[in-house]
Each structure stands twice: as structure tokens, then as C-alpha cells.
């Protein structure tokens, strides 16, 4: 089982990103579940979302304690949340940033999701929407295929820019 934890802020698309990843994994012929932890938070507050991907039906409903991968969609949450908490030894950290951040003991990647979303003018209520760029980046890491990622986006959205941002992220992600 591959377990992903996504840190974002309400309104950025972290919950939707988790759902897109799960849908893409299912389109890859695997099993997956996606779920957020809903607190009392609203727009702007730190939000945590989870994805489990496996080759058998996923029976676990409790929160992910030891993720294989942590995706930090908002660098600011690192000031208030320990995003590395429980991350498996040698696990992966992806940050939404134009600059590389090193986390000792972990594989680290960075990608400027916000820049990609702004380039496509993918902004809702003043927030750049990052969800489709997230799955483009994860496709580059081989967690899902880019074909299924695009299928998932097409099933959930009708705006062509959503697929474009996934493509952009897939291209710009350096692995």
C-alpha cells in the first residue's frame, strides 16, 4: 500500500487533489481511497488530506500515520504543522516552491505549482487552484500514469486549463 499525505490550506484544492489522485489510480486499474480530515477549519486554514493506493481493496479508514509521501502545497503551513511527522524513512517530500528544500533522510522534490496555476490564470476567489498541477507532478514520480491523471481530470472538470496545468506540472517536475 502506498500512502500519501497532502498539506494545504482551505481553498487551494488539497481535498480535490487527493480525490483526483485516487480516481487516477483507479483508472490505472488499482484500488484507492481519498479522504480529508475535516476539522472546524475553513478557507485559509491548514487542511490535511490522505490517499491510499493498493492492489487490493483498501479497508483502512483511520488516518495515515506513516505516509510514504508528503505533499506540501503551501510552504506556510510548515510553520504551524510538522509536515514530516511519521514520514517513512527514505520517504518522499514534494514542496510547492520554486526553490529546492532539503529534508535530511528523505527524497525531496520541488515544483512551482503556484506559478503554473497563475500562468494559466487558474484562480478562484483570489486563490490559485493547484489540484490538477499536483497530480501532474505525482504522475512524473510514477505514482500514477499521466494518461490516467488526465482521464481523472476530464471526468471531474470541463475547463481545458485543468488538463493543461497537469501537463505543465508533469513537464516541469524534475526527477
Amino acid at each position, binding site marked *: 500500500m502506498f500512502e500519501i499525505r497532502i498539506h494545504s490550506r482551505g481553498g487551494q484544492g488539497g481535498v480535490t487533489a487527493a480525490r483526483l489522485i485516487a480516481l487516477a489510480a483507479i483508472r490505472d486499474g488499482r484500488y484507492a481511497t481519498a479522504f480529508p480530515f475535516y476539522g472546524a477549519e475553513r478557507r485559509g486554514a491548514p487542511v490535511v488530506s490522505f490517499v491510499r493506493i493498493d492492489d487490493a481493496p483498501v479497508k483502512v*479508514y*483511520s488516518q495515515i500515520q506513516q505516509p510514504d509521501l508528503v505533499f506540501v502545497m503551501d510552504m506556510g503551513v510548515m510553520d504551524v504543522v510538522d509536515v514530516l511527522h511519521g514520514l517513512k524513512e527514505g520517504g518522499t517530500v514534494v514542496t510547492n516552491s520554486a526553490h529546492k528544500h532539503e529534508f535530511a533522510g528523505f527524497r525531496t522534490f520541488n515544483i512551482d505549482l503556484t506559478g503554473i496555476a497563475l500562468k494559466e490564470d487558474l484562480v478562484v476567489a483570489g486563490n490559485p487552484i493547484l489540484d490538477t498541477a499536483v497530480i501532474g507532478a505525482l504522475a512524473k514520480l510514477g505514482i500514477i500514469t499521466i494518461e490516467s491523471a488526465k482521464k481523472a481530470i476530464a471526468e471531474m472538470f470541463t475547463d481545458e486549463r485543468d488538463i493543461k496545468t497537469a501537463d505543465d506540472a508533469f513537464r516541469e517536475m524534475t526527477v
Partner: protein
Amino acid sequence: MLTVATGNKAVALAVKQAKPVVVAIYPITPQTEIVEQIAQYVSQGDLSARYIDVESEHSAMAACIGASMTGVRTFTATSSQGLLYMHEMTNWAAGARLPIVMANVNRAIGPGWNIWAEHTDAMQERDTGWLQVYVSTVQEAYDTTLMAFRIAEHNDVLLPVMVNLDGFLLSHVMQPLDTVEPADFIPPLHLPHTVDPKNPMGYGTLTGPDEYFKFRWDIERSMRDSLRVIEAAHKEFFQRFGRTYGFTEDYRCEDADVVVVSMGTLGKEVEVAVDNLRNEGIRAGSMRLRWFRPFPKLDLMNRDVVVIDRDYSFGFGGVLAHSIQAKNRTGVFSVIAGLGGQEVTYDDIAGFVKNRHIGREYWFGVSDNV
């Protein structure tokens, strides 16, 4: 067709396919996605139902009662405080023998204010005459909602059915969903006591001490008959759509020395605990109770029983644990866990099994246990 959905969306989709004629729902977290989705179906013309905007859950159920009395299919959904506000009307729905189907997204009751999963809301509807079923996956939420209409409307039942799904844990979890074409799996509704202006009759009139108990007995008789109707619905569902359901879902119970009984999503987490326990040489099994009303016969003889209640009856105990003790004349280790969305992992569950003490009650997370 294989798609993905949250528990809420799966329920809404099943309702759309069951084609109710009247829908009246008041939104409440974590059920709101159901009312939003159904409202959208109606506004887009995907469901040609009369959608009645109501100002409260009490009115939602009252609207369903009025509509159901005219002999049409009705649906509503609620959760927690909303269900409690409906309580007077839920009794009326069952007493008036109206086959209303309701989704209840299980959520704790305030105060302290809490929007997370717990079964105590539905437990407080235990004695109303509603059938109650608890589901554990998005697929099961969808399948069971379809079955609920068929069972409620069966001539030998004619009682309302409540489909329970855990708040957030299931209502907001996205999982694979294989949809079906129900076609005549849900036959047309023929309510024998429909209001008919051409044939005026009194409904719910004063019923004296020499008659009232007969109506109560009639509800109980239908409850007992519903066991057979539910079994037939499960069988028919399997024959048409290939998925198996029972009163319980048993997992590795055949040779188990200890069986964990639970309801809802916890039951799936228990299966993972069972696999891990067996790897350690402990012969455990999981029995996830689906139908709570009518309460089925459980095969729990000659083994240790651990019951996890995501509910509590103050001054008494876990409702499920005590129901099993009474019905099966067996001692159990009663675990109270998951109240108000408390995290319960498969490791925690394995711990309950290893540290079981038959005859005792254990509150998970509380240090000074009974």
C-alpha cells in the same frame, strides 16, 4: 459502470435511480452533500421528483409522511441533531406504516459540539419501528440504498428504512463505485392504505386501549417478516448484480476463537486487525453487523466475543454489546471506542482483542476503566 464517489454521492446516485416522487431534506453536516446532489439532479431534470424546500428536519419528515400517504415513493436524509429534531415524526412514519427511506449520516450529539462519526444518533431511534442498516463502504452505501426502497415498500414490511453511514469516515471518503441499472429490482410502489379522495377514510384517529396494541403487534409482526424480505432482497441483488450481502459480513469467523463484532466503517478496520492477529497466531474473526433492526440471530457460540460500540447508553452500557448479550445469552468484552470520531486504528483493535476481559467494559482512551 466503474466510477468513484463519496459515500454521500453514492447515496444520492442510488436515490436518483430509485426515482422517488417526493424528496424533502434539510441540510446538516456531514449529510449536506446528499441534499446538494439531489437538488442538482432535480434542477437539471435528471430526477423528476418534487423537491420540497423545508425549514427543519421535523418538517422534512412531515412532508415525506404527507407525500407517502398518497402512495408515492419518498426520500429524506439527515444526521445527528437533525435526526433528533425529527424524532416525533419518525415515530409517526413507522406507526402510519409508510415506507419512507432515509439516509442518516451518523454523527455525535452535542454538547460538546461535534460533527464526527458516532452511532448514538441512530440508536436513539432504535424503538421507533424503523428498520436500520449500517454500511461500511461507498459501494455498500449505494447498493444498500437501492435495496432499502425494495424492502421498505414490500407488502409484508411497509415500514420505513434508515440507511446509516459514518459521518466523514464514509460520507466524505472517495472510493471506487460500480453502478448498476436497477430496472425492476425496485418494483412500483402499491401502498394498500393510500389516501384517496374518492374513498375518504380517517387516518391516525383516536385508537382506544382495546385496539391500539393490535397496531403495535402488527408493526412487530412486519418487523419479523422483514427478516425474510431482507434475505430475499440480498439474494435477488446477488443474482442480478453479483454482489453478496447478508445480515452480517463475516470475515475469517469459521475457525475463530475470538470474534470482534462492530458496525459501520470500524468493521473494515477490524478485518485488517484480524489479518494481523492471525499472523501472530491468534485465531480472530470479524462479524460486522449490517442490520440492527430487525436484529438478526448471530452465530457466536463457543468463542470469545469482543464488541465495539461507537455509541453509549448512559447508566447502562454499549447498546450493541448489551443487545448481543441479551439475544445470545453470552458474555462479551465491551469496548466503547470511536465516540465523536475518535481515531481507532487496526493496531488499537488488535490491542482490544489481546487484552480482552470477558464480562468487562472498556472505554478506549480513558485511563480509569471499569
